[in-house]
Structures are given as structure tokens and as C-alpha cells.
């Protein structure tokens, strides 16, 4: 591993990098960074940088608080567009104990473990997200107390695929895509979404660990470039009532070496047995993992009927009301055979989301689950009785329900590891209880005058 280190040190020297940001992620998916100077870099690469882990949500208990951020030199990347005159680079870190043991609380370790298991079965796991988000007129810098209270104001009133001119949001999205491309994050397509000021960036697939790092990078780049223009970019799942929220559909596939394990020439839909059992696994365990892929009170305001978000647990070839969709691929494009899991939102922790979805899918493969028939009708038009007759369940309707489902799941406890599992359940139950204790404007408007 000497060469990546040399590469990083030489590059920092040659490109006159002034700051190196050591990135990692807390259990709830918030980006964290320790900024160091080139003088500290060699030690950081050799030994890691010590910090107080108990100050990070979900990392460690107070009595064992010192942990190390150990840079993964292979992730070193210049942040060309985020530097104001002082060239800055980032490197993603693994978090380890002082004795070098991977920290249970580090989400990147959770995903690494999940991918190790997939590899033991001979699979590599690929993911490509479609990330939706909003731009809002910012009263100030993000984080201002005043910014959060009033309803956010969209920058425009465009909609799906609008070719808007003179539109700050579209200009920002364009800049973001260029910045991402220069960082080596190829963007498949990008467009104005359905709702006012809502945008979407679709990323090309990578292995799941790289993708989780990339999703974190995209969130930082989108927000940072917006903030420079006095605009707030938000990945909040449902920032505006009455229009669709922001999802992060995950396109997933398994490869065995060079071969797409989801593809089968013989099958009518070109779906292999592995793909069918993977879908079956994701469907069967969907309720258990929803607390992870949709981890906020607000997430469940997106997962409602009427806004193209999935609500019912089902799959279909090309039916956007289904939870799992199998996108049609062009003839002969066997490598692009994949499934699309439509529940996650872009405010999830991507490491944990990918780890849990992978675990659910591979449980289906390993245990040989049967895939139910695909859905052919529009689910939203069925009555509750009709759905029951078809045996179609719904996703959890609230964070409270979702946490209750998660807590019962042995499979998810294994996927997340005991430490993250317990911390996450505790944290999310507390969030739900806080929310339950609130009296909302909805209640005041509706009840105060009459009750």
C-alpha cells in the first residue's frame, strides 16, 4: 500500500494543495471533516488522526472515546470547484479504534462488512442512484436560525424536463454536473424534476462502497455550490406540501466477475433466478429496512399515495407505483439489466441504506425466496380490500412504525451490527417521541377555531 500514499503525497506537493479534508460520515449520514495541512498528511496516512469519537453521533461510548480517522488513500481527490484560491483535496476515511480494529459505529465499516459477505458468495454489488433535491431562495447562509422556520421559497415554477432559460436553479445544476464530472463522477442524466425548483442528478453505477462515498460527495458539492450563490440546496425528503418529494431511487445489480448475474437470456423478461430471488428478498424485508432508507419523520410525508412515491410492497416491469421496478433495457444490453428500489430518499445514510438493501436482497438469493407475480394494475387505484386479496402490504406509514419493524428484525441487526442497530433504534425512537410531543400548525389551524 506504499504507492497510493506516495501518490497522494506527491500530488499534494505538485498541485500545491493547501488543505486536505479527512471525510467520514456519522451514523445518521451527516458528513464530517477534519481539515489538516500537508505537513500533517504523511502522519495521517501512516497512523491516522486521533479525535474524540464520542462527539460523533453513534460512533462510540464516552469511556472509549478516542478513535482514529484513517485515510483510504485510494479515495484521494482534488476538490477543484470547492477551493477558493487555496487548492483543497479530500480523502475518505475509515474509522478505527486506537488498536486498529474497525470501529463498529462507522457506517463505512458496516457497508464494507456487507460487501465482504457478498464477495464471499462470488458477487460484486453495483449501485446507481437518482438523486432528487430542491433549490430554495436562501435568506442567508444555510444554518441561519431564521432560514429554517418560514416555508421555503422555490427559485422557479418549472416542471419536468422544462427547458428553462435564465433560471438560476438550472444554471446551478449545470455547474454542479460539470464539477462532478471533473471529479470523475460521471452523471448519466440530469433534469428539472416535476416540482418547482426540484432537480435530479442521475449517477452512473459504481461498486457500492465507492457509490456511498460518491453520494456523500454529491450532497456536499450540490449544497456548497448553491450556498455560494446564496441559495439553499436541500435533500429533505418532503420540503413542500402538495408537490412531490425528493427520492433517491437506487438502481442495483449483482455481477459475477464480468457477467451480470441479474441477466438471463432464456427468461421472458431476461431476469435471472438470482434477480428474482434478490427482488423477493428486498420485498420481503422492505418493512424492516425502511427506517434506514427513510430515516426521518419527514421521510414518511413523501411515502404517500398520489405523488409517484412507492407506498405498497410490490414489483413491476414498468409501473411507477411499484416499490421495485425492473427498468426495460435495450435489446442486447445485458449489462444494464438491473432493479430499481424506489423507496429510499436522498437524506438517508447511503452506507447503511446500501448495506441493508443488499442484505435483504442476498437473503432472498441465499434462502431461495419465491418472487410473487408482478403487478399489472395501478396500485393506487385499488381499494384496501383488493390489495389485501392480492396479499399486498404497505410500507411503514411513519417513522414510529418503521422503527418498530426494524427493532424486530434479526436480519437487519446482523446487517448493521449490534452497536449501530441499538444506537439507531434508540435515536430514531427518541426522534419519533419528540415529534409526537409537538403541536403542529396543522392542528392549530384545524382544531383551535372549532374545538
Amino acid at each position: 500500500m506504499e504507492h497510493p500514499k506516495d501518490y497522494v503525497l506527491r500530488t499534494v506537493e505538485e498541485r500545491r494543495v493547501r488543505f486536505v479534508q479527512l471525510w467520514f460520515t456519522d451514523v445518521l449520514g451527516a458528513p464530517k471533516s477534519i481539515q489538516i495541512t500537508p505537513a500533517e498528511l504523511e502522519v495521517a496516512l501512516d497512523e491516522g488522526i486521533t479525535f474524540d469519537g464520542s462527539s460523533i453521533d453513534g460512533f462510540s461510548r464516552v469511556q472509549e472515546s478516542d478513535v482514529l480517522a484513517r485515510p483510504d488513500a485510494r479515495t484521494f481527490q482534488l476538490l477543484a470547484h470547492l477551493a477558493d484560491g487555496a487548492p483543497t483535496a479530500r480523502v475518505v476515511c475509515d474509522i478505527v479504534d486506537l488498536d486498529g480494529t474497525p470501529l463498529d459505529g462507522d457506517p463505512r465499516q458496516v457497508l464494507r462488512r456487507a460487501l465482504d459477505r457478498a464477495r464471499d458468495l462470488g458477487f460484486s454489488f453495483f449501485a446507481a442512484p437518482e438523486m432528487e433535491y430542491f433549490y430554495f431562495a436562501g435568506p442567508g447562509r444555510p444554518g441561519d436560525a431564521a432560514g429554517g422556520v418560514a416555508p421555503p421559497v422555490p427559485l422557479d415554477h418549472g416542471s419536468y424536463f422544462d427547458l428553462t432559460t435564465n433560471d438560476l436553479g438550472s444554471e446551478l445544476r449545470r455547474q454542479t454536473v460539470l464539477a462532478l464530472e471533473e471529479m470523475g463522477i460521471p452523471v448519466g442524466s440530469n433534469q428539472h424534476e416535476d416540482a418547482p425548483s426540484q432537480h435530479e442528478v442521475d449517477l452512473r453505477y459504481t461498486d457500492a462502497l465507492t457509490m456511498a462515498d460518491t453520494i456523500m460527495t454529491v450532497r456536499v458539492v450540490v449544497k456548497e455550490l448553491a450556498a455560494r450563490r446564496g441559495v439553499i440546496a436541500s435533500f429533505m425528503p418532503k420540503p413542500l406540501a402538495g408537490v412531490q418529494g425528493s427520492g433517491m431511487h437506487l438502481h442495483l445489480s449483482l455481477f459475477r466477475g464480468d457477467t451480470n448475474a441479474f441477466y438471463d437470456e432464456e427468461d421472458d423478461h431476461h431476469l435471472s433466478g438470482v434477480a428474482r430471488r434478490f427482488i423477493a428478498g428486498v420485498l420481503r424485508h422492505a418493512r424492516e429496512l425502511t427506517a434506514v432508507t427513510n430515516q426521518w419523520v419527514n421521510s414518511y410525508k413523501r411515502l404517500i399515495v398520489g405523488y409517484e412515491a412507492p407506498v405498497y410492497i410490490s414489483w413491476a416491469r414498468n409501473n411507477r407505483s411499484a416499490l421495485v421496478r425492473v427498468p426495460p433495457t435495450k435489446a442486447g444490453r445485458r449489462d444494464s439489466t438491473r432493479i430499481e428500489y424506489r423507496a429510499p430518499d436522498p437524506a438517508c445514510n447511503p452506507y447503511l441504506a446500501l448495506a441493508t438493501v443488499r442484505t435483504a436482497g442476498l437473503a432472498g438469493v441465499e434462502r431461495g425466496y419465491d418472487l410473487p407475480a408482478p403487478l399489472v394494475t395501478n396500485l393506487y387505484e385499488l381499494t384496501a380490500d383488493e390489495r389485501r386479496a392480492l396479499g399486498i402490504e404497505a410500507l411503514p406509514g411513519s417513522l414510529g412504525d418503521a422503527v418498530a419493524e426494524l427493532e424486530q428484525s434479526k436480519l437487519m441487526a446482523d446487517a448493521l451490527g449490534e452497536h449501530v442497530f441499538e444506537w439507531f433504534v434508540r435515536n430514531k425512537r427518541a426522534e419519533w417521541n419528540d415529534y409526537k410531543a409537538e403541536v403542529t400548525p396543522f392542528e392549530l389551524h384545524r382544531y383551535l377555531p372549532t374545538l
Partner: protein
Amino acid sequence: MTTAATLLLWPHPPPPALVRCVDLAGYAWKAAAGDAGAGTGPPVTEGSWAAAVVSAEADPEGAVAFCRALRRGNGTPPPLLLVVGAGHLPALDVREQLWDDFCLSPLEPQELELRLAQLLWRAGRSGGHPELVEHGGLVLNRETYQAAVAGRPLDLTYMEYELLKFLATHPGKVFTREALLSQVWGYEYYGGARTVDVHIRRLRAKLGEEHAGLIGTVRSVGYRFGQARWGAGTA
């Protein structure tokens, strides 16, 4: 228009056995046109060739004349590999300045491939800047680990740099994903062979539209560096 990745073969047409070996080794090639006996022919001295492979099997004296013409051409002569029958070895005596290495015919495909690789490797090291790898606007500095295209520095990750370096030091040769994975990564990576595609895509994005074609896709085989004259490859 010729890229440095292309081999120059003589005579025209080259012997089928030689063509088969060169194709197997994955190199692009062109046969020298013109009257070789006279030691002339514009294509020989025009363009830059990765190496020349001269078959002395049918016409030893013509081959020697061609080698001489090549050595006297404008610019730096390409490294030269002679293919010669055992019976003609005496013709090489005291003419060692005309060739860099030779192969005995009948040809053993793997021997030719190894000798060519060795020749290209030596040639790549012996220039004025041994640490520089240059190709079609791309410059890689192996000492400083820096890469630039058309003078614009590329912000590469370590693995992207290693992959680009490997490809650029083996121009014209087709590599399968598996071969690249074992040569460049050298260990079992999460992505498996598919990860090569991801890195190629990232490299192309960073090279920019104009230079993305430096890395060509060879359908259902893998990738080849330096086929820009046939247009940009698509993933």
C-alpha cells in the same frame, strides 16, 4: 494521422504468419508501402511508429536495405525487430546497428509478443525524459505522478492514475477487463472486473470530450489505448 501505437511491418504485404502473430499480440499495424529495395517510400519516414517489424525471410537483402532506410529517416527511428530464418543469420553479422532485436522464423507468437513488449519498454525509457510518457496530447510524469492533457493537469485518484499509466505505456494493445484488474489492481477489489469499466468512464470524463477517445472500447473484448484515429470509443 498515424498514432505512436502502430507497428510498421515490412514487406508489403507482410507474410501471413507475421500478421497473425502481431494480431494475436493485439497491436495495430500498417505495412510499409513503396519500393523497399530502393530504400525509399514516404510512409516509412512519415509519422511515428511504435516499432518496426521487418521480415527478412523472403528477401534478406531487401530487408537490410529497408532497415538502413528506416535508420536514416527523419526524426527518431522506431525500434526495429528483425524476423529472420536461421539460415540467414550470417547476413546479420556486423550489421547490428541496423536492428534492435530479432526473432527466428518460424515465429513463435508468444516470443514475438514478449520481444516486442521488451523493445517498446526499452524505447519508452530511453528518450530524453525517461519519466515522461507522452501520447496524443497526454503527458504522464511517472516521477511526480502527475498527468496532463493538452497542458491541463488532470485531478486523478490513485487508481485512475495507475490505470491510465498502464494503458499509456502499452499503447495499441487490447486488454481484457480481467487482465487490467490483475495488472493494475492486483488484488480482489469490491467491484470485480466491472470496476474497470467504472474507472475507464471516470478517466474519460476527466480527459474531457476531446481526448476521451484516447481510450478505445474494443467491443466484447476490453480496452485499448491510442486509437484516436478511428474516432472516440464508446462504453
